[in-house]
């Protein structure tokens, strides 16, 4: 198995958190994995991208030009990475900020998730990233949802551990939304 994912959004949306969460889960499933954060001098509001490569073989390049999957959390990210997803690849859109009608490509598997609205039903806007990664794992099954939730405690410092149940709930909500939605 070999899967490349680019996740892209705006600093503050929690891109790096879900990237390292997915990578941690893959590690826990005994897979080889690279997690490459691409942040420069940006802070909140700037571009925030990361690349995760998951493989049962040795991983060559941690850098990917055309990924199999892409998670798009904000509008500028769509322009940057939308054209680069491999034909037949998977595009997951945070439709709270990105209008699916802006996607011109017809050769992709697309899932739109209104992450912000779903997070709001849980009472916390900032869980949008967890909703998205829950939906992503439900659709791609690169790792199991159980491992993903179990990885939460590994990537959060202990003094944030009171937030684990809320994050796990957001993952479940995202997965549930993905299960119940039709691909466009």
């Amino acid at each position: 198995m070999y899967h490349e994912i680019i996740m892209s959004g705006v600093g503050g949306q929690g891109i790096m958190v879900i990237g390292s969460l997915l990578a941690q889960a893959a590690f826990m499933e005994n897979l080889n994995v690279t997690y490459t954060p691409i942040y420069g001098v940006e802070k909140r509001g700037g571009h925030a991208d990361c690349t995760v490569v998951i493989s049962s073989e040795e991983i060559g390049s941690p850098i990917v030009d055309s990924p199999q999957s892409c998670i798009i959390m904000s509008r500028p990210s769509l322009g940057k990475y939308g054209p680069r997803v491999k034909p037949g690849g998977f595009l997951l859109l945070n439709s709270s900020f990105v209008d699916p009608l802006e996607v011109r490509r017809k050769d992709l598997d697309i899932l739109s998730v209104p992450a912000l609205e779903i997070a709001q039903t849980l009472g916390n806007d900032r869980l949008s990233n967890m909703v998205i990664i829950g939906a992503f794992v439900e659709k791609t099954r690169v790792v199991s949802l159980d491992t993903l939730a179990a990885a939460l405690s590994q990537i959060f410092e202990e003094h944030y551990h009171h937030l684990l149940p809320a994050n796990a709930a957001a993952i479940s909500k995202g997965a549930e939304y993905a299960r119940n939605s039709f691909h466009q």
Partner: protein
Amino acid sequence: MEKRLFLRGNHALAIGAIKAGCRFYFGYPITPQNDIPEFFSKQMVKVEGCFIQAESEVASINMILGASAAGARAMTSSSSPGLSLMQEGLSYLAGSELPAVVVNINRSGPGLGGISASQGDYFQATRGGGHGDYRTLVLAPSSVQEMHDLTLLAFDLADKYRNPVIILADAVLGQIQETMVDRPYQPLELPPKDWILAGASGRDPRLIKSLYLKEGEMERHNWKLFEKYQRMKREDVRHENYLEEEAELIIVSFGTAARVAKSAIRLARAEGLKVGLFRPITLFPFPEKALFDLSQRVKRFLTIEMNTGQMVEDVKLSVARDADVHFYGHAPGSPPAPEELLNALKKVY
């Protein structure tokens, strides 16, 4: 007991240093290596070691000189502009024959440059930016695993030769997180440190210096150092071959560029192109003999670097005269992707 870990390259390197018995870290902050001092600032106290954020890179390298002269394993880390500031100290370490490990997480330059990954410091590391006729051993990791393993080796080689060792990585290797096997440290058999300055009571005084003014003394010292560099070439050259058997084109590449090249080679092989990889792990001593031997059989080489052409000079010096050496450079910005390197290799295949 071997344990699997998932961690970033800068942390793997720092863990390796503590495992190798490094108890003195002196450094000054600069991106993209800041995870290293941050790690030591928390961990050194737990092993009764010493972490000092020095007032400058010049101070850091000279603090290492002091700690090393007293017999301790000591290191510093920085990124490109910081290494420029350390060159005088590296020359003094080499001249005084003092072991030290100096890490360069190469960012782009010249000048302040940028914080993206680059291999622009190949010349600086292998030729030395300091004055005088000296060499430093240069190790070039290509994975998080090697960030750890080569750090263990670096401390041993520094002690073996009484010479500074540079670990030349880059922003990608420092910052990616990857799986790694946490192997135990098995030190090389090393000579006793019978030269250290840690109190002369009950023995004759010793002297560590790099100043030689007496008739013939400087000449003898330079030839002694030369013999040491020759010994490095005999005993401590390392490289990796990948799919080089029956290859018609060999890519020569190190560090991050080499692992992107590996992916490009897999893509090429899937299209039936017989391409292999020769990856120097020691940049000095350069694996010139192994490359020469390979060039007896393969006649086409493509050097790929994340700069505009540095290691390619060593490749040209190494291969047989009838071998062609091509070059593809990817100047810093974002690192190259496998598809870009695939296109590059097709042009010379």
